[in-house]
């Protein structure tokens, strides 16, 4: 199995280390041809405005749109912003791959970054402990009917899934546990 990581900018390396430790081979994706034959794609954390800009520069928009509409895709933080149907604060263009409304930098600035345990949604993986590192994180302020919340912080959705697409507003690549990477690999 080969999983791609969008590598235009951001926290690529920690995901690469996680995937490799789980026996998955990794393809860094900077140009459209590198999306070929991938079982899944990770859109990592970073700056969403920078990534949007570089997606345009490197002519990735069309092929990313196609990939994320059908194949297993996981967006983290900035990646979740790129995948959301609706982005605010400020409004910006997105791939519209998952029916959520996401608000950028919604908890505040770096001084408001935090780490916390998360609550799994009723009936989903209740026996495990989940923790989240939130860095200048966005907030999912609305979840459409076709999308399903998996994890919450303070009752608010922080990890949401809709068929092939998974998004999290926190950074599992910065914590010890690999369980969310394992969950994503299971989808691929």
């Amino acid at each position: 199995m080969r999983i791609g990581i969008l590598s235009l900018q951001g926290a690529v390396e920690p995901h690469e280390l996680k995937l490799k430790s789980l026996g998955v081979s990794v393809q860094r994706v900077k140009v459209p041809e590198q999306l070929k034959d991938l079982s899944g794609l990770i859109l990592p954390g970073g700056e969403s405005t920078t990534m949007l800009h570089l997606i345009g520069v490197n002519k990735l928009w069309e092929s990313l749109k196609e990939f994320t509409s059908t194949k297993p895709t996981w967006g983290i933080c900035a990646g979740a912003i790129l995948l959301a149907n609706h982005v605010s604060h400020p409004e910006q263009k997105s791939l519209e791959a998952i029916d959520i409304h996401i608000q950028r930098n919604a908890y505040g600035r770096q001084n408001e970054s935090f780490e916390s345990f998360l609550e799994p949604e009723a009936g989903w993986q209740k026996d495990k402990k989940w923790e989240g590192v939130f860095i200048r994180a966005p907030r999912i302020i609305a979840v459409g009917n076709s999308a399903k919340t998996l994890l919450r912080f303070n009752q608010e959705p922080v990890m949401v899934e809709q068929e092939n697409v998974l998004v999290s507003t926190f950074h599992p690549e910065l914590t010890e546990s690999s369980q969310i990477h394992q969950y994503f690999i299971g989808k691929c």
Partner: protein
Amino acid sequence: MSEMKLKTGLAEMLKGGVIMDVVNREQALIAEKAGAVAVMALERVPSDIRKEGGVARMSPPEIIADIMEHVSIPVMAKARIGHFVEAMVLESLGVDYIDESEVLTPADEQYHIDKFRFKTPFVCGARNLGEALRRIGEGAAMMRTKGEAGSGNIVEAVRHLRSLRSQMRRLTTLGSEELVNEAKELGAPLSLVQMVAKTGKLPVPNFAAGGIATPADAALCMWLGAESVFVGSGIFKSENPERLANAIVESVANYEDASIIARCSKGLGIPMKGIDIKTLKEEEKLSTRGW
């Protein structure tokens, strides 16, 4: 160490990007539009500090606040070496990173800031491994080479990147008893020396700064192990800041592809003139500030 995870976590998010020096809102908006991952607010860009002389201090709070209000990307700001009150002011303004910077006139010739006392993360400059580990030992969550700011000359950044890299490589070849002596020689905490010996890397992200003036300069730093680049005077002292900013962002993201660097280096006009480092007197060098 949870706090450190949040501090280095933001630096992880800034990897593979370009952080641009800006002195006002207009420049910050140009930087954001060009794809900068963050902006660094300062009173004057290094080449002007060099030209005009005088004491260079933290940027006026109203300018920093104005920049923070108008861009959605992280905003960093510089404090003078050892000036922990400037750092406290920057923390209270809510900047995302504080640069304890040799570009400003040092406030303390003996001590750097105790950075563990702050919630806001710090980036510091270094010329070599010992200096980098001393700063990390004081709580810096991100390192950058010092280079020679405001010179438009990449030679010092290259020297610092290479020195750091070869010193780290050497540590990985030493035995445990040799590391104790090495820590003494480097003037660095043994625990950090042991960490580098094990991984061959700094325990925090390592970026490049000081003298980057062209897309090829930026890519060179990435090849030499920098994980992102800071561009100071280079952009807004060039003939066409917007195009150069775009080109440097594109070049860093695609630093392994020379054909892309060739394409984005076309038509940029005249870069900043630059200074031959050999013509600088020792006291004119910014990189020798701090220890």
